[in-house]
């Protein structure tokens, strides 16, 4: 099979992509019992009769989890159903204690939402089909095999700490058209989860995970092609790569006259390829039916409205606000993605500092220092007050822009306030007109030739005179002020 570049295939083929995202909620307790949802490292230490599915145990829904899913649905512009139903999804697997998962089927908590994503400046609206509530499974560790997969393992260890952790599934319409859009969707969804504070949304630990449904069709056709579902996608980069691979694979199969088999495929990060896990014929009949242990889930209008009213600012709203404060789109995104930077930016700008300057500092020197020193910005000594003070000093011409950056770095390292550092390092510029005037007059008197040339219309010697004045003042004069006075003085001759 040849691997042709994705860009090439798009001339005749169009990808149709939908994404299912699972998000573990960071609630205090599990979905249907009182065990902690914050999973301890020691296996099987956060378990009880309910989440181990002991005989006779019954589920009781977690109100905080319901609040979480309603918050997510509200942020995604969904309709919140006043009454929704829990179903049993039946399948046998050793790490699924009841051998059915409590999930939702018809009548999920949230439906009919959307999310806007931007790729290369173009915004696309991705429809959200549904957001439903379910519970996580335990974890299987396959031991004895080479790559931790089940096929060549000689035994399996089970940890039920994760079993029953609240899980929200977010399903899109097949509105995504490219791997890049898919990645942008995943990234934006992750930002929203973090902004809402409902999940730690870590892809690497699996507290947020994606399944990608991919099909291709000839450009211009309306009917959908046969789709595959790719699992085990553990990063945004993998999401993009796995989808790109799957599009290429499907196009190759079709161009070679083959047919796409509806199946579940497994993404292998190391080989950069998907492989077949099971076909539709082998797939489970989940025998969904309404869970008789649980009553319909009621979300009152009052509850729904209260959640809506207390919804925090969403990342897109924050980015728009930051752009309004004078930063470009890329800077706004970096700031909005970091609560620490966003907080510093907002407080500094609210304190009168210019947005563009603060944005540049934060995304430039501040991030660079943090990476170099391997210290979180929040762990550094930098405060918004420092930024305001420093910006004011810049504005007053007390520091050169280079000196300003040095001072910023020193502030982060804990050397003191900007003024203390500027004084200690002797970086303060003189912008006192009297002192500069005196130096200018001395320099002009010493250089009559230059003065004459300027008077004759040749402005080149201005630079020379600037240098002389600065040298005279030990390099600490505000160049803007020096230049202004020089011009005034020479013009006036």
């Amino acid at each position, binding site marked *: 099979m040849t691997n042709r570049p994705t860009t090439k295939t798009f001339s005749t083929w169009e990808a149709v992509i939908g994404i299912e995202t699972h998000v573990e909620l960071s609630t205090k307790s599990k979905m249907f019992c009182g065990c902690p949802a914050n999973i301890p490292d020691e296996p099987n230490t956060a378990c009880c*009769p309910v989440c*181990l*599915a*002991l*005989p*006779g*145990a*019954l*589920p*009781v*829904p977690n109100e905080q989890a319901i609040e979480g899913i309603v918050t997510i649905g509200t942020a995604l512009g969904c309709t919140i159903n006043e009454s929704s139903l829990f179903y*049993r999804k*039946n399948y*046998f697997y*050793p790490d699924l*204690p*009841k*051998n*059915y998962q409590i999930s939702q089927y018809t009548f999920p908590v949230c439906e009919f939402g959307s999310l806007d994503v931007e790729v290369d400046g173009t915004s696309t609206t991705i429809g959200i089909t549904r957001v439903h509530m379910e519970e996580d499974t335990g974890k299987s560790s396959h031991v004895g095999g080479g790559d931790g997969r089940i096929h060549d393992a000689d035994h*399996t260890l*089970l940890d*039920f700490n994760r079993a029953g952790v609240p899980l929200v599934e977010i399903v899109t319409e097949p509105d995504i058209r490219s791997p890049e859009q898919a990645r942008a969707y995943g990234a934006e969804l992750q930002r929203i989860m973090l902004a809402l504070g409902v999940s730690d949304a870590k892809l690497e630990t699996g507290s947020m995970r994606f399944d990608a449904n991919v099909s291709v069709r000839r450009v211009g056709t309306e009917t959908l092609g046969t789709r595959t579902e790719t699992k085990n996608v553990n990063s945004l980069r993998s999401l993009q790569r796995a989808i790109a691979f799957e599009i290429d694979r499907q196009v190759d199969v079709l161009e070679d006259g083959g047919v796409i088999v509806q199946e579940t495929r497994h993404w292998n990060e190391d080989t950069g390829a998907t492989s077949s896990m099971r076909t539709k014929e082998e797939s489970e*009949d989940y*025998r*969904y*039916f309404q*869970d*008789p*242990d*649980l*009553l319909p889930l009621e979300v009152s209008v009052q509850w729904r409205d209260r959640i809506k009213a207390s919804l925090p600012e969403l990342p897109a709203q924050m980015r728009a606000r930051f752009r309004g404060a004078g930063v470009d789109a890329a800077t706004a995104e970096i700031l909005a993605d970091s609560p620490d930077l966003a907080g510093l930016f907002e407080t500094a700008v609210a304190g009168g500092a210019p947005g563009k300057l603060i944005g540049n500092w934060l995304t430039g020197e501040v991030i660079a220092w943090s990476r170099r020193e391997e210290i979180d910005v929040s762990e550094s000594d930098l405060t918004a007050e420092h930024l305001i003070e420093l910006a004011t000093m810049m504005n007053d011409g007390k520091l050169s822009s280079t000196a300003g950056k040095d001072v910023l770095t020193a502030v982060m390292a804990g050397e003191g306030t900007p003024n203390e550092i500027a004084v200690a390092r002797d970086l303060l510029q003189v912008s006192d007109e009297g002192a500069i005037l005196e130096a200018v007059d001395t320099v002009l008197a010493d250089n009559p030739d230059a003065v004459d040339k300027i008077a004759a219309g040749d402005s080149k010697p201005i630079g020379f005179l600037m240098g002389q004045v600065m040298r005279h003042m030990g390099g600490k004069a505000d160049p803007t002020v020096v230049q202004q006075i020089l011009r005034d003085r020479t013009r006036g001759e």
Partner: protein
Amino acid sequence: MADLADLTIAEAGVGLRRGEFSSVDLLDAVTRRASITEAQLHAYLTLDGQGARMAAESADAAFADGKDVGPLQGIPIALKDNMCTKGVTTTASSQILAGWKPPYDATVVQRLKAAGAVLTGKTNLDEFAMGSSTENSAYGETRNPWNPNHVPGGSSGGSAATVAVGSAFGSLGSDTGGSIRQPAALCGVVGMKPTYGLVSRYGLIAFASSLDQIGPFSRSVADSAVILDAIAGWDHYDSTSIDGPVPNLAGSLETGVKGLKIGIVTELMGEGIDPQVKAAVSTTATQLASAGAELIEVSLPSSEYALSAYYLIAPAECSANLARFDGVRYGHRAQVEGTAEDMMAHSRAEGFGPEVIRRILLGTYALSAGYYDAFYGQAQRVRTLVRNDFAAAYEKVDVLISPTSPTTAFRVGERAADPIAMYYSDVCTIPSNLSGDPAISVPIGVDDAGLPIGFQIMAPALGEEILYQVASAVESMAGFTQRAALASSEVVAP
């Protein structure tokens, strides 16, 4: 003097409080009775002698200290072996749970303990409560105390038999399609299924969650109300339990039936009902009319389909409820080479008995893609019709009456090979499970063979007060005082 083991809870309570005997004396009496009868009956799977003695001693100590938590204090009570008891083997009569000791108490067990009851042990049942004769137990069948050649009914046959024979003063059973009322009828005791949600199911090993309900067996209607009162009420751990006031259970026991409208269900008095059973029920109905009740013939047209609907809904739910028994975390694990899936499949095949496997397969099929609508979906629609029928009936009458079981106790083995005949045992009791309404069986007499006949009273949801009111009237009118043959003092160990 009568044997202490034959007292009602009310009588025992009086004696305890007068200091005529102790809780330990009561426990000794039922233990002695069990030692005489168990060889023939096999009503108990586990006798918790040590736990019971400690509980009896602490009840006696409480009495001595002047502490009295209520009418069950010091009373020996038995539990169906599908209710979890912390540290005491709980098997649901299945090999798959052989030797399993739960790490927690069911809510009803906690409540009985809190009420001062002395829990004697765990009684036999049809495996996972699936059956109507207690023959489907992996640990051997229970026999009828009136005639050991006959079945005690089921699935709570053990709990019914202990109360009938005097090896417990009362007991708890669970009723999914009649599993309390039918064995109560066949064993000549009072058996009551409360309104769905009145008693917590937490810790009851589920058969069919939307139908299962725990309720009491007793030797009198008043005792039944006392036990129910101790276990009823909202429980945080059961989302389907009713969050509201518990009906006043004992309040109307003596008020009679004058002016009440009583509906006799025509569909449950026709073909398929044994003539002697029918005659006895008619006699009692006539007595109710003589006592001032208005007797009205009422039709429940959908009851014809109730049995079929039940045998789709219950197996469907059980197919998921019993999925957890897979040998992974507890219970029987097959020793097989191969994958985890092989181990799970073999554990289940080895651990479950034939009736359980039959119902799991039925239920799995009924829920399968392409069949769901025709089977499970259709059954749910019938369930709605049954509810509607009951609602319409209760527009006209206060309670409904019928036989509890179409026949008296059948012979051991008689229906074992014919599941449909066995399923028909529940024809009179299943409608109340589908509607979720309370119902009670009160013994009213015996047939020519000397086997007891049960009279069923049904009431609307949370109508326990009027249910007990009518049951109490039936009890006194029937004047049924006969005791099971095995309970008589002439019985000796074989």
